[in-house]
């Protein structure tokens, strides 16, 4: 009887302890951290590609225009926050006529990776349209710390 009570209270405590993790996991399913690793590209890998003579990807910033105006990857295009329906529509329009094998890199860098609300919906939308060569730029902290401060190429303005 006593053992039963002990196991029961232990079970309750264990459940309470795990609850935050379950909640966090559920919330993060819609965030960047839910994107599988093979779909990611690191900043240094992208810089190498940009410096090479291979196919240059279509680079799309799916975050805020105010952030884009301050600094963005040269040649990349601003689409709008993919967390909004307007942003997703813009994205679909932009890529609609492209071959589904087109190399596309999407990025945001608004927030720490686990909190970025924009790249996952953009990645999902592109895959739903049938694009097979999409990479998401992995920005651990934010665009300032992980791109600008690293000395990678930057452009300003619209």
């Amino acid at each position, binding site marked *: 009887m006593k053992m039963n009570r002990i196991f029961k209270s232990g079970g309750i405590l264990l459940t309470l302890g795990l609850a935050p993790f379950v909640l966090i996991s559920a919330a993060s399913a819609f965030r960047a951290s839910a994107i599988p690793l093979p779909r990611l590209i690191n900043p240094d890998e992208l810089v190498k590609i940009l410096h090479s003579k291979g196919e240059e990807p279509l680079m799309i910033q799916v975050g805020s225009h105010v952030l884009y105006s301050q600094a963005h990857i040269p040649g990349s295009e601003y689409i709008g926050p993919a967390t909004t329906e307007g942003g997703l529509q813009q994205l679909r329009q932009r890529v609609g006529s492209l071959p589904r094998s087109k190399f596309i890199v999407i990025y945001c860098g608004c*927030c720490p990776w686990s909190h970025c609300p924009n790249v996952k919906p953009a990645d999902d939308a592109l895959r739903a349209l049938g694009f097979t060569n999409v990479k998401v730029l992995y920005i651990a902290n934010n665009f300032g710390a992980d791109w600008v401060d690293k000395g990678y190429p930057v452009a300003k303005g619209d």
Partner: protein
Amino acid sequence: MKAKLLICMALVAVCLGIYFLEHPCRPSSPHSAPADRALAPDFSLPELTGQRLSLSTYRGKVVLLDFWATWCDPCREEIPHFMELQSKYRDRGFQIVGVSMDDGPEPVRDFYQRFKMNYPVVMGNAKIGELYGGVLGLPIAFLIGRDGRIYGKHIGATDITVFEEEIISLLQKGKIA
């Protein structure tokens, strides 16, 4: 023996759960370095009402300047705590000013009304971002002393107790030691 072990494991799980809720994983950034006590650049930007707000209006008060956006989860999570701080320390000379980095005022207006925010919010732009050293990630909050100088810069969601300690220190001593 097994029961004790199970209880110990459960307690550890509870503690870990609480810890990770209170301290969400976020990598440190070089931007988190202590402030350089530079004068906070003044600005005049439109509030949601259309009136213009100048930072210099608040000279003599301790100001928390919060760069945020409605679509930024960690930004949104901080706002109820900021509202509490605003209510708690307003009479002692504390003022929060939100700078929205949203692309337009509509979602900000909705958010402001829905959450009954109790401090002014202005619409930011690239220029103010550059004035403050580049706002290239959200949220970013600056703590400005009564003398108009920057005493703290916090990148990413920051524990509210950190803000409160710094605010109290600035209110009491005029600056953070």
